[in-house]
């Protein structure tokens, strides 16, 4: 289902849409407040953007340095060309160690690779330990937001889900009660776990270590209790030096939720005695994106989701309408790189208002890239025939003064004399919820008349 259709369904429940919009707008306001508290916020964004641009321009070198250092630290490094490779690598580690019990903290990369489904097809159950992710996992849904995976759900929904899966009281909505139930449930999973999968927020080339940011501490719980830790990262997660980390940590949580910093910024450098530590470095289309000059800097993204929270379209259509692991404006510029045909709708799910570009902590020109993707997609033939024909006709009318004048007059005449043509809700989507403008004659005619009278 394309974004527009999914958004139409989402908007059928007006009260819920309003609630979704207001909830996320509140997060945007928290972000504003947090950003205001940092003197030179704009300079910090500039610094982050420059570090990322530099890194992308030297990515091969930094990746090699990172691999070297990580290996020296005793970490096993794997390279995955695509999602399938990634899943197979993780699976082979699981199988060769004869593992049954697996916990995972939040990793959008594993979502992107559809790892849980892959493992399920092999009969392996992966327990998501991020509270929001566990909720959507119970419901057999996907995260609707990369930072707040269950933001589309109300506490009543969570209560019902926990009642079904955790045996909490029916009708319970108290957040503390529900969270406690999840906590006890997850505690058991952590203690029993043999293998922990985490994402990576930042991988530091200089040290060969990596940093995982969470608010729930679930990455630590998983990694510290299990005897195997697999960290999955996209190739763009590299930063050159430890001294750069502070720039990103200051920006990340403020942009994401308005917190000064995530509750946990967990640094991993080497395995504990008798622990295995693996890093899977995944390309999955990123090097192709790196080769597209107009779109390469989308790889600067640090997954804060500030662009989601500020996007007036995201807030009123929900994450699932973007049919991708990463939704919102950033998802809409990343997804066409992976599959143009399936994601041709996404760059059009925007008014190009530009708010995303302004909140982006690493200064990705999101709305310009949305515009540029539209051009690429139409050029590559992913527009419908009716759209192409319509645009051709429109260009003819709008570039030819004679036809333009005639059609304008005709159109206004039609609106005046047979208004039902425009007032068909089926033929004219505008008219479903909006009146047509009143035709009052054209400026050009007035101007010609005035000039004639002078």
């Amino acid at each position, binding site marked *: 289902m394309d974004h*527009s259709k999914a958004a*139409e369904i*989402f*908007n059928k429940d*007006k009260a819920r849409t309003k609630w979704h*919009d207001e909830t996320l707008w509140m997060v945007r306001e928290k972000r*504003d407040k947090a*950003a*205001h508290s*940092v003197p030179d916020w*704009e300079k910090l964004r500039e610094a982050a953007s420059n570090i990322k641009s530099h890194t992308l321009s030297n990515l091969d070198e930094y990746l090699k340095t990172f691999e070297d250092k990580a290996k020296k630290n005793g970490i096993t490094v794997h390279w995955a060309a695509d999602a399938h490779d990634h899943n197979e690598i993780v699976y082979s580690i699981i199988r060769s160690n004869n593992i049954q019990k697996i916990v995972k903290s939040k990793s959008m990369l594993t979502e992107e690779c559809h790892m849980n489904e892959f493992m399920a097809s092999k009969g392996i159950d992966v327990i998501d330990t991020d509270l929001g992710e566990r909720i959507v996992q119970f419901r057999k849904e996907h995260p609707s937001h990369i930072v707040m995976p269950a933001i589309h759900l109300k506490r009543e929904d969570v209560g019902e889900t926990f009642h079904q899966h955790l045996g909490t009281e029916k009708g319970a909505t108290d957040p503390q009660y529900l969270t406690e139930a999840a906590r006890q449930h997850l505690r058991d999973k952590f203690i029993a776990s043999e293998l922990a999968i985490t994402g990576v927020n930042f991988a530091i080339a200089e040290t060969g270590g990596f940093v995982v940011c969470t608010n729930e501490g679930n990455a630590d719980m998983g990694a510290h209790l299990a005897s195997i830790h697999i960290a999955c990262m996209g190739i763009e997660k590299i930063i050159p030096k430890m001294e750069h980390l502070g720039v990103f940590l200051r920006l990340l949580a403020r942009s994401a939720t308005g917190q000064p910093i995530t509750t946990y910024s967990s640094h991993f450098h080497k395995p504990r005695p008798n622990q295995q530590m693996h890093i899977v470095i995944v390309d999955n289309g990123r090097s192709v994106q790196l080769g597209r000059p107009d779109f390469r800097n989308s790889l600067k993204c640090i997954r804060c989701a500030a662009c989601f929270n500020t996007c*007036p*379209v995201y807030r*009123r*259509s929900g994450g699932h309408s973007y049919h991708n692991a990463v939704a919102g404006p950033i998802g809409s510029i990343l997804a066409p790189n992976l599959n143009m045909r399936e994601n041709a709708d996404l760059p*059009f*799910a925007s*008014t*190009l*208002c530009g*708010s995303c*570009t*302004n909140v982006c902590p690493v200064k990705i020109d999101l*709305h310009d890239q949305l515009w540029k993707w*539209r*051009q690429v*997609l*139409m050029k590559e033939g992913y527009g419908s025939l009716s*759209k*192409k024909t319509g*645009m051709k006709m*429109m*260009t*003819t009318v*709008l*570039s*030819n*003064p004679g036809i*333009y004048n005639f059609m*304008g007059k005709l*159109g*206004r005449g039609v609106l005046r004399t047979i208004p039902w043509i425009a007032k068909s809700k089926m033929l004219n*989507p*505008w008219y*479903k*919820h*909006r*009146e*047509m*403008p*009143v*035709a*009052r*004659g*054209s*400026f*050009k*005619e*007035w*101007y010609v008349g005035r000039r004639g009278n002078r």
Partner: protein
Amino acid sequence: MKVALFIPCYVDQFYPQVGISTLELLERLGCEVEFPIKQTCCGQPMANAGFAASSKACDLNFKENFSGFDYIVCPSGSCVLHIKEHLQPASDPAVAKIRSNIYELTEFLTDVLKVENLTASFSHKVGLHISCHGQRGLHLSSMSELMLPSFSKPAKLLGMVKGLELATLTRKDECCGFGGTFCVTEEAVSVAMGQDRVDDHINKGVEYITGGDMSCLMHLEGILRRQKSNVKVVHIAEILNSRN
């Protein structure tokens, strides 16, 4: 000062009074204004739909109409931004000239004519809808996302209008959801966004919603009229040119 008046196609066709007000206002402020008669459209509707490459004929027609003036002024931030960023071929000196001397009306008044007072009078409570392309594209006002000093060229001008009371909105610069073809291709979200903007203004008790882009106002007007609201839309040029 020879000024070419660029009137967006939909303003020409549906809102002639906006063109008239812009023309009269510029003339009263001492500009010699000409309306190149064969102008049509800037090509933005096609470009935003992904067909910039096939709107060459629009670009050519625009160039033919608007070359040779000191300034080009237009009562729409969106159309001006499109010309500034996308009029092709950019390597053509005539095109480069057009890109650099085209101005949105309010920025022309504040930055070029350096208007410090107006004789306009409009005794109503007014809400100012900030249109995104004028704001985030042309920087007509500061943006709520950026941690930079605040300013507003349109609000500064409205402050010179006798009797006008400007409302403070809850969401100062949220998009109205018009978005060109977005308003029909993403009808549901477009209307939801428009409804929320309209409600913000109505909740502040405004009689009029004004702004620099008639396209946004047309969208908001469509929603207001469907609901039989008493709140009206009025382009900022009409207020700045008002003499009642």
